[in-house]
C-alpha cells in the first residue's frame, strides 16, 4: 500500500515544534523534540505507550505548557497553555477518549464553543446546514439531530472529526484513532483522511499500529522514552525496522518449544454454564491451551466458570482429578487458579486503589493479614518486589493504579498472578490494547510459566497469537468448543471454518 499525496510543496510548515521539553516532577515526558509538518502531509507519531506521544500533542494543543521549546502554526507562534489559540489557528484534535457530551445532539456538540456566549440564539438551522455540507464533502455520514449517546463508536469519531472541520481546521491531530474501531470503520476513516489530504489538510496520526502507519503516513517519527529517536520516509522503511526502533532493539518473539504434557489439572466434561454448552476441555500441566474464536461466543462464560464466578449448570468439572463440592472465586484462588481478566479496568483492578492495594486483592486475607489486621509493611514490600521483577513503570507502590498505562497495569496483574505460582493460569485476552514491547513481555512470561509446569488457558481473538503460543487449540463458536487440535496440525483457514461454526454439526 502506498500513501496518497506526497506533501511535495514545501513552503512554510503548517506546524512546527522546536525543542519541546516537558517534565512532570522527576519524569521527563518529552525531551528536545523538534519536527515540522507541511501542507497535505501525513506524519505518524509512532511509539509505545508512555513514549510521550500524547504529552507532545497536549502541549501542541495547549492543554499542557512546555517547559522549553516553541510551537508554531502557519508561521505564527502559539502561546503556551491556551487550547483556544490552537483552535483559532486552525489546529483540531480528535482525542483518543472522545470529548463529546452523550446527552446532547450531534449539532449541539459540534457548535459548542463556536459562538459567542452572549449570543441570543444558537441558530440551529445554519449549524445543521453547515454540518450536512461537511458530511457530504468528507463522506462523514452522521445525522446532526441524533443524540450522541445513541451513536456507535465509529459515528462518534466522525462527530469528533466534523467538530474539527467545522472550525475550519487545516491541521488534524488524531490520537490513536483506530484503537476503538472495527476493521471496516478503520477503512472508512482512512478514506475520509485521504479525502482531507487531497483538500490540502495536514494530519498528525498518532499510533502504535505499524500496518496503519505504513498505510496512511508519508513520514514516520518514532518516539522512545520521550525522545525523537528516528525519522523515516514510509516509502523507505518497513514494519520490522520501525518495530525494532520503537522498542529499542530487536523484537524477540518468545520461543515455545514442544514439551511433553504433564498430568491433567482441570477437566470439563459436557460442562454447561451461562453461554457455554456441553464443553469438553482438559488443561494439562506444562501446556498452553489456546481458545480461538470471535469474542462473545461463550469465552466469557468459560473463564467465569473456571474462575468461580459462574456456577456449573450441568456436566462435570474436575480440578486435579476431583470434582470440588463448592465452587466460587475464593475457592478458585485457593485451588491455585490465577486469573488475568479480560477487562483489566473493570474486573482486574480498582482504579482508585493504589498499587499495593491492587497487588494484594486476591491474597489480602491469607498472606497479608495477621489476627485480622492488615500487615501493610509486608504488602508494600511484596508490591515493590512485583514492581521490580515485572518492570512496572510507576512512581511507587502508593501510586493510584488509574494513573498507569495499560501495559504497566497488565504487568502488575501478571505479577500478581505469577507470584502465587498458580497451577492453572487463565489468561483472557491478556494482550488486548498493549503495545509490542508489552505484548512480547506478557507472552514470554506465559511461556515461562508453562515451562515451570503451569497449565495455561489462553483465550484470544488474535489467531496469530493463538497459533504462535498454544500446544493445543480449541475453537469456540456459539458457546460450543471444538475438539482439541495439536499445534501445527491445523491451518489458520481451517480454524477460520470452525470459528464460523462449521464442523460442529458433524461432531455432535
Amino acid at each position, binding site marked *: 500500500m502506498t500513501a496518497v499525496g506526497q506533501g511535495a510543496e514545501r513552503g512554510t510548515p503548517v506546524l512546527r515544534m522546536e525543542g519541546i521539553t516537558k517534565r512532570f516532577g522527576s519524569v521527563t515526558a518529552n525531551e528536545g523534540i523538534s519536527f515540522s509538518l507541511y501542507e497535505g502531509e501525513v506524519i505518524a507519531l509512532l511509539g509505545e505507550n508512555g513514549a510521550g506521544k500524547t504529552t507532545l500533542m497536549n502541549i501542541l494543543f495547549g492543554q499542557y505548557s512546555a517547559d522549553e521549546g516553541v510551537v508554531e502554526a502557519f508561521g505564527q507562534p502559539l502561546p503556551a497553555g491556551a487550547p483556544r489559540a490552537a483552535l483559532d489557528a486552525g489546529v483540531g484534535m480528535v482525542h483518543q477518549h472522545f470529548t463529546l457530551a452523550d446527552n446532547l445532539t450531534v449539532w449541539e*456538540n459540534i457548535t459548542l464553543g463556536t459562538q459567542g*456566549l452572549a449570543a441570543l*440564539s444558537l441558530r440551529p438551522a445554519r449549524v445543521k446546514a453547515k454540518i450536512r455540507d461537511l458530511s457530504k464533502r468528507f463522506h462523514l455520514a452522521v445525522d446532526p439531530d441524533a443524540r450522541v449517546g445513541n451513536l456507535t463508536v465509529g459515528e462518534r469519531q466522525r462527530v469528533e472529526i466534523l467538530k474539527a472541520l467545522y472550525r475550519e481546521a487545516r491541521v488534524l491531530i488524531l490520537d490513536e484513532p483506530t484503537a476503538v474501531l472495527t476493521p471496516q470503520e478503520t477503512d472508512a476513516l482512512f478514506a475520509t483522511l485521504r479525502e482531507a489530504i487531497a483538500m490540502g489538510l495536514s494530519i498528525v496520526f498518532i499510533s502504535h499500529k505499524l500496518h496503519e502507519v505504513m498505510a496512511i503516513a508519508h513520514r514516520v517519527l518514532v518516539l522512545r522514552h520521550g525522545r525523537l529517536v528516528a525519522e523515516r520516509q514510509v516509502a523507505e522503511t518497513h514494519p520490522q525496522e520501525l518495530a525494532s526502533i520503537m522498542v529499542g532493539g530487536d523484537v524477540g518473539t518468545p520461543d515455545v518449544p514442544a514439551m511433553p504434557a504433564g498430568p491433567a489439572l482441570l477437566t470439563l466434561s459436557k460442562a454447561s454454564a451461562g453461554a457455554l454448552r456441553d464443553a469438553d476441555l482438559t488443561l494439562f500441566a506444562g501446556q498452553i491451551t489456546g481458545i480461538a474464536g470471535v469474542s462473545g461466543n461463550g469465552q466469557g462464560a468459560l473463564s467465569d466458570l473456571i474462575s468461580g464466578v459462574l456456577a456449573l449448570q450441568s456436566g462435570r468439572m474436575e480440578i486435579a482429578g476431583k470434582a470440588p463440592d463448592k465452587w466460587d472465586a475464593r475457592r478458585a484462588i485457593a485451588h491455585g487458579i490465577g486469573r488475568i481478566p479480560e477487562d483489566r479496568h473493570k474486573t482486574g483492578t480498582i482504579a482508585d486503589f493504589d498499587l499495593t492495594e491492587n497487588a494484594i486483592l486476591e491474597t489480602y486475607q491469607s498472606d497479608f493479614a495477621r489476627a485480622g489486621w492488615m500487615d501493610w509493611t509486608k504488602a508494600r514490600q511484596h508490591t515493590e518486589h512485583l514492581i521490580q521483577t515485572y518492570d512496572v513503570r510507576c512512581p511507587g507502590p502508593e501510586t493510584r493504579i488509574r494513573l498507569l498505562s495499560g501495559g504497566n497495569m497488565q504487568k502488575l496483574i501478571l505479577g500478581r498472578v505469577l507470584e502465587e505460582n498458580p497451577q492453572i493460569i487463565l489468561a483472557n485476552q491478556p494482550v488486548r490494547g498493549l503495545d509490542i514491547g508489552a505484548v512480547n513481555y506478557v507472552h514470554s512470561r506465559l511461556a515461562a510459566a508453562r515451562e515451570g509446569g503451569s497449565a495455561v488457558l489462553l483465550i484470544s481473538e488474535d489467531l496469530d497469537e493463538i497459533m504462535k503460543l498454544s500446544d493445543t487449540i480449541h475453537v469456540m463458536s456459539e458457546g460450543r468448543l471444538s475438539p482439541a487440535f495439536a499445534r501445527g496440525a491445523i491451518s489458520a483457514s481451517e480454524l477460520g471454518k470452525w470459528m464460523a461454526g462449521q464442523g460442529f454439526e458433524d461432531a455432535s
Partner: protein
Amino acid sequence: MDLFDILLSASFWAAAIRIASPLIFATIGELICERAGVLNLGIEGIMVAGAFAGWISVWAGLPLWGGVAVALLVGMAFGALHSVLSVPFGLSQHVVGVGITLLATSVTFYTYRVVLPEVSSPPKIQAFQPYEIPLLSDIPLLGPALFSQTPLTYAAFVLALITGLVLFRTPLGLAVRAAGENPSAVAAQGLSVTAIRMGAVIVGSGFMAVGGAFLTMSAFDSFFFDMVGGRGWICIALVVFGAWRPGKAVLGAILFAAFDALQIRVQQTSLGTVIPYQIFLMMPYVLSILALVLMSRSAQVPAALMVPFNKGTR
C-alpha cells in the same frame, strides 16, 4: 363528594399557584446548578437566608423590589462560597452543600438576634399585594387562579420561561449543559469549565434566595425560624421530577402545591373528622414520592453531575 367542588374552585387553584411560586424560584435555581454539574444542597439554608434578608431589608426601609435584590445578592454570596469550594477546590458537593445550609441557617438566626434582640414576635412589613392583570384576570377560573397573583409570582413564571430559553436556545445555555454532561468537551473547546460552573452556582443560588424571600414578602409578611421548613429539599426532588427541564419542573411544583392546598381543604370536609390530620399533612409528600418514582424513570441525569473537573488529570 365535595372533592370536585374543591378542584373546581378558583380559590383552590389560586392557592396552589401561590404555594408553587417559591418552589419554582428555588427549583429553577437548583436546576441551573445541576445542569452545570453541581448539586447544590445549600438550597435549604440559602432559602432561609433569602427569606430573612429580603424581609429585614424592607423592614429597615428599602422598597419591596429592593428587598428582593438584597435577597438575590445574599443568595449569590452563599453561592459564591459554595462554588469556590465545590468547583476549583473540587470538594465533595454533598459536604459543601450541607455545610452551606448549616452556615446560612445559623448566620441568619444570629443576625436576626443581633438586629432584633428584644422582640418576642417579629415585626410585620407591607408585603407584595396581588395585582390583577387587566382582561386576563376576568377569565373565569383561570383569571383568579393565574392572573390575580402578586408580581413576584409572575416573576417566578417569567424566570422559568427565560431559563428554558437560555438553556436550550443560546450558546451560553449549551455551554452550561455541556459542562454538566462532559466537562472535558467544554475544556477541549477552549471554554473555562470552572467559570461556567461557578457562574451557574452563583446565579442559581441567587434564585433560591428569592424563593425564600417570596415566603416573607409575598406569601406572608413576616419572618419565622422554621418558615422554609424543608421546601429546599422538596425542590431538589422537583428537579428530578422535572427531568432537569424548567417547564416540567414548574408543572411538578404546581402539582406538589396543589396537593398541599388540597390537604388543607380536605381536612375541613367531613373526612377531616374521621382521619387524623397528620395523614393529610403527609399526603403531598407521599403523592410527590409516587409521582417522582413514576416520572423520573426515564429522566436523563446530567452525566457529570457531582463529578469534579480537574484539568490535566486522567
